[in-house]
């Protein structure tokens, strides 16, 4: 277990280091953006005195290093600062939106990951025969269509014609789990169709690669059924590439859903970020950027850890 533990510890410390590097990048990046926040808050008619006062209040006159460490120190204790435009506490505003985004992503992941792996297994089992071709063609078609088109299509079919799910994903505090699930079903399905093809094709390719191994022949010559050979002997050795693609798509489900949120009027992080980018509300942009980066790094870290743990050579050294 020593080797695996060492590798995982290494990955985690690298992840933390990377997160700090990203925080620097985000801070520097937002500093060199054109425009002046004070000016945009007060508008064209502001007097120079008002502008100077506001800059001082906002701490914009401090040296960049001081401002970076003040910002970072706040984040460490969970304080993401205040939005310049509304004066609202960012942490509070983000908390519910992040929760919504994570909920939607989780629902989409729970549907899409098992489906993708299952379809991948079926495609391998019937390689080059009609089920394989049908799966490849349909998942490719769904990835080729733009998200907004799929979204409106689903609204038309399941929302308007069949009336199974609400067309607008309204969620509010204190909503029950069942209602909430019902509300996010259409956006979750839209996201599923977007990420399914990538994960399914990677599963198929990774397993087919393993199917060339001599131990697959051994398993076949034991008289195991095709599906058992794939499930028991091929899949465990294909986990590492599959899990990496799964995590990449999970990250996309969390940070790349702006369009879907807009279509279904869903109060998630994406919309919040886009709103504040257009208002040049730097603290909000910084906070959202850092959260997205943390999610990306965290998910990839999980993929790495699962890869390490799925390798018996690392789990059980000689």
């Amino acid at each position, binding site marked *: 277990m020593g080797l695996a533990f060492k590798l995982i510890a290494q990955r985690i410390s690298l992840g933390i280091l990377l997160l700090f590097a990203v925080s620097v990048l985000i801070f520097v990046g937002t500093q060199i953006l054109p425009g002046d926040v004070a000016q945009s808050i007060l508008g064209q008619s502001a007097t120079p005195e008002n502008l100077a006062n506001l800059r001082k209040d906002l701490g914009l006159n401090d040296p960049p290093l001081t401002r970076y460490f003040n910002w970072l120190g706040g984040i460490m204790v969970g304080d993401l600062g205040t939005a310049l435009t509304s004066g609202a506490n960012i942490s509070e505003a983000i908390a519910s939106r992040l929760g919504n985004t994570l909920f939607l992503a989780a629902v989409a992941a729970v549907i899409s990951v098992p489906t993708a792996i299952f379809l991948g297994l079926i495609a391998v089992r019937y390689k080059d025969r009609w089920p394989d071709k049908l799966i490849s063609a349909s998942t490719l078609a769904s990835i080729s269509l733009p998200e907004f088109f799929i979204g409106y299509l689903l609204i038309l079919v399941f929302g308007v014609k069949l009336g199974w799910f609400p067309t607008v994903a309204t969620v509010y505090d204190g909503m029950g789990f069942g209602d909430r699930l019902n509300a996010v079903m259409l956006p979750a399905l839209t996201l599923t169709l977007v990420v399914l093809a990538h994960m399914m094709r990677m599963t198929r390719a990774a397993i087919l690669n393993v199917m060339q191994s001599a131990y697959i022949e051994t398993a076949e010559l034991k*008289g195991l059924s095709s599906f058992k050979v794939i499930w028991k002997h091929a899949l465990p050795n294909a986990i590492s590439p599959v899990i990496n693609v799964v995590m990449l798509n999970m990250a996309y489900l969390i940070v790349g859903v702006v369009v879907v949120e807009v279509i279904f009027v869903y109060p998630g992080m994406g919309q919040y970020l886009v709103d504040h980018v257009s208002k040049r509300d730097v603290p909000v942009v910084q906070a959202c950027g850092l959260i997205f980066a943390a999610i990306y790094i965290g998910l990839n870290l999980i993929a790495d850890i699962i890869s390490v743990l799925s390798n018996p050579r690392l789990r059980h050294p000689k």
Partner: protein
Amino acid sequence: MNDAHFLDIRDLKIGVTVREPGTPPRDITIVHGVSTTLGKGKVLGLIGESGAGKSTIGLSSLAYGRGGVEITGGEVFVNGRDILEMGRSGLNAFRGREVSYVSQSAAAGFNPAHRLIDQVIEATLEHGLMSKADAEARAKELFAALSLPDPETIGDRYPHQVSGGQLQRVMTAMALCPKPDLIVFDEPTTALDVTTQIDVLAAIKNAIRLTGVAALYITHDLAVVAQVADEIMVLRDGVTIEHGSTKQIIEDPQEDYTQALVSVRSIVHQEKQPDAQPLIRMENIVAGYGSGPDVIADVTVDIYQGQTLAVVGESGSGKSTLARVLTGLLPARSGQISFDGRTLTNAQKDRPLDDLRDIQMIYQMADTAMNPRQTIGTIIGRPIEFYFGIKGQELQNRIAALLEKIELPADMASRYPAELSGGQKQRVCIARALAAEPKVIICDEVTSALDPLVADGILKLLLDLQKRENVAYMFITHDLATVKAIADSIAVMHLGKLARYGTKTHVLTPPFDDYTDLLLSSVPEMELGWLEAVTASRKMESAGN
């Protein structure tokens, strides 16, 4: 059904469809109507060179075609049923229950993700033959019968945690566990070192005797199959050449081809005496990789002009590392190399061009040692251009002369490596080494990947070239028969040290040190009862100690 013919292969034809880009698919027949029968508890050896169809025939008794291989005709009866007529579910119920399989490389044949015990009892459980507890108990009995260490717990390990020889025995236990009627052994000892091979061979033979299972034993090594088989079938290009009892095949072969196989490695090489001054002296060489431990320690050997130093040892003994030190690719950590009386720089990159030219290499895998996109002429011509700056017609003449030396037609120059056979490719590699007109050629296992008869041809060529060109060889091999055929002096390496070193006569004449004795006595000999004699004498010795 008849116990004397429980396996009955009739007029078996096997083909493969070759799909090469740019040409229409072609059907090639690889087995042309082979028939045989096997009685319960008997062992039939299938022997032949690569491409003879022996593995393909072996797998057909599981109704299995590897890759695109298809059984195109004939019948295979096992226990009275034609298995070629079975559907998918019938085959699943048959495979692993009535017939099981032991592959060449157990290291690749075991799934790295599961514990050994789970894989060993998998077929037994799948076919509902025993309860899990009974199957595990049987597996442990088999581990003990195959003389595996710690039979109670070895199954809890993963494949990467046991050695190659042990893994091959575990695989035999896996094949035996469901109590099949027949086991197909597909070159089970070919990938093993010679001292490991003898143990595995003895274990397999013992297990066959204890369980009374019948076996098809596939190998290219007649001496090995002579130890385990009751009958031997000699195959060539998918046709049966000769089929008879083991005794008859070994002692009284009828066909020319069988006679050639029996008498292979009968090259007699007159040993030359060392000169006063060696061409190359490697002195107190210590070397290792990266920051790792020393792989070879304190090795001193001499190579004489026009003579062959054979470096022999098992995998991991450091023999290839010694070659890398001589080429300078791996600079020695300490020690020195003198060449023609002067000191040779340790690192290859610091050596003058002439020193590089004087030391050439030939590799084990001729396939990967040549650029597949260059013609044979380009491959051989490159060193001539590079070292001597010769171009144009003169270059073409030199290439033609080299092709003649390696006994290949001159029009080979315009062909590509993929169009050549294994033996021809190795000849081209020899020509490329000769093209530099070196003083010494390092031959790294150059005959290991070749069939015995082809390997014989290569050895004869190398000896002949040595006589004419007065070139020295450092000949690295794990095969003692090759050593006897070619060496003037021998260095036996074991765990990075010289176990024994001297002229051929000295090294191969008793009294031996323990390791050389073990190595020499482990080489299978083409006589019946050799395995029993050796294992019995080893048991006596260990009892005596």
